[in-house]
């Protein structure tokens, strides 16, 4: 499984009323060595979220007592900025917008692949860890300047198109983590639909080629059936 750098000790709150879904989430996150607490209602979830110092919250959109949207709204109103992954059976585009507007940080529709759910949680964790975003990232001589939006290898500038830069940036920021095609599409292009198998693949292939031509070792790995992972896995 993906290398986890600073998330071993992370604690996650799962607010979910459906037992089987909750079990699935808890099992997957526990497998990733997170500490996991579960709340079955919005009220209980809110109480836990206010007291405990969680790193990420997964929040069901439809809860029996308080609506998921109100839960995030409440948290944000109390200046609690724990990243929230909204999980909902409503996949409507408007629903996503609404969830994000209410203060959610990411949105996942049911049914979901648990590895994708875990990947999204990790991205949220990573974001929290890098709260003070570094302006430079460096992996094995490959460096990106997040202010100038430029990349270089061993001091030589790489000629990247804007989207290629965005892609590399997203991969490097989340190095060591599996990123699904959908997540890449959402973050780099900002659209939320299934981009199809090939579309992201050709972009990755293009980026790989450019890195390779500059003499960079292969750092973008394919995770069969899942997505891509940046980092040296040898």
């Amino acid at each position: 499984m993906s290398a986890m750098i600073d998330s071993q000790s992370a604690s996650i709150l799962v607010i979910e009323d459906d037992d089987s879904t909750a079990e699935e989430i808890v099992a997957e996150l526990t497998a990733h060595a997170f500490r996991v607490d579960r709340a079955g209602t919005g009220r209980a979830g809110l109480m836990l979220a206010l007291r405990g110092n969680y790193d990420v919250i997964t929040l069901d959109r439809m809860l029996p007592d308080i609506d998921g949207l109100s839960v995030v709204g409440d948290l944000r109103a109390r200046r609690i900025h724990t990243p929230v992954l909204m999980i909902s059976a409503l996949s409507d585009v408007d629903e996503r917008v609404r969830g994000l507007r209410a203060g959610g940080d990411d949105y996942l529709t049911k049914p979901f692949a648990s590895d994708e759910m875990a990947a999204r949680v990790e991205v949220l964790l990573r974001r929290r860890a890098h709260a003070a975003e570094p302006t430079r990232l460096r992996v094995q001589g490959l460096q990106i300047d997040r202010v100038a939006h430029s990349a270089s290898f061993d001091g030589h500038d790489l000629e990247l198109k804007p989207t290629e830069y965005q892609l590399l940036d997203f991969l490097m920021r989340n190095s060591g983590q599996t990123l699904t095609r959908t997540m890449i599409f959402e973050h780099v292009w900002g659209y939320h639909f299934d981009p199809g198998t090939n579309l992201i693949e050709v972009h990755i292939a293009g980026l790989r080629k450019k890195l390779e031509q500059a003499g960079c070792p292969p750092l973008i790995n394919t995770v069969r059936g899942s997505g891509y992972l940046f980092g040296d896995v040898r």
Partner: protein
Amino acid sequence: MFAELWRITSFRLTVLYGGLFALAVVGLFALIYWQTARYQNQQVDQILLNQVHVFSTATADQLDDDIAYEIARDIRRIGFFGVFAADGKALAGNLARIPQGLILNGKPRALPVERNDDLFPQALEVRALGRTLDDGRVLVVARDVALLEQIRQSLLRGCFLIAAVILLLGVLGGVFYSLPAVRHIRDIDRAARRIADGDYSQRLPLGRRNRELDVLAQIVNAMLDETERLMGEVKTASDNIAHDLRTPLTRLRASIYRTQQSMDKTSLHRDALNHALTQTDLLLTRFRALSRISEIESKRRRAGISPTFLEPVLRTLTELYEPLANRGGVKLSLRIESSPSAVCDGELLFEAIGNLLDNAIKFTPAGGVVCVTLGGTQAEPVISVSDSGPGIPPDLRKSVLHRFFRADDARNTPGSGLGLSLVDAIVRLHGFGLVLDDAPEGGLRARMSCWQRRMPG
């Protein structure tokens, strides 16, 4: 317009009745005329017979006097009298000669005569009667029937006038009664065309006057209600199946994935599992696409819809699809003819054009071209995606919008036949238009008119 009116039964009937009525009037007038003429002729003939009878009993000298007296007495100058010698020489009276064709048998008949005084008219049509007197002279008595002629003329005039009025009223009445029917039929025609185009929410309009049409329209509407309900049921059922199957499929995928992950890298089963994973993903993708289409189709809220500049959207799209095109050896270009904006959900529009691009690139063989064009006016923007591929034959251009439909020669390219259905759903949601036709490049051209051309739905 007239041809259309003529198709309406009520119009034809009204005009037909008008015509028949006019004919009856003409017939009636003819009968009146005929009867009047007969009666008058009988009257005149009786007078003539009496006169001849009186004259023939008079002596020769008396006769001339009697005739002169009669002529003087006849202030209306409708009587004619003549006494002629056996050789036809006029001896007395006001006739110039023995009328031609007069048979001297004492029976009245219609004849033209000529008068010998200088009164007007000189020649005229009369009833005349002639006989040979005992002394061999010929007596002719005639009487003008001008009155009859006058009656005939006024009857004729009246007859034509009334017939014309009746006919006119018939046509006007027909138009008056039939115009609403014509309009109603036009409305029905329009609605029926939309229904035939697949818009099952349309209903045939009901008129105010035409009971028979309304009864039919109501029956058809009831049928449409039922069809729509059934179609909705089938769709809901398939959507529900797609939706319900997604959860177990996702679980299935999760366990395959976990097994694959926990497996030794060198295990021989790894390939088989990878294959299983790919297939499951394919299935999931299809179910997701199906749910998404039905979600968009049933979407009533339009929160994401706002004025959107199309040029940046298309630039991002071409950039997104360019590597894919390059890999397929296809040249992808963007042509900006104008830079309008459209009122739309930018994200959905992106997805729709993305699907069109995906098809164009997928079906165009290496060495071909795909061109995205943004044109039209600010009020009526048009986005088109054209390619140099095989195109779609005209008879299939409607079917390809249906779910799962793929042309036979598309079997070898990957895909599920849901792409264009999604595009169609998005186009409908916005009330936009989508036309598939021939591209100047030789393949398919998909033209999306991005302004509201009909009520969304």
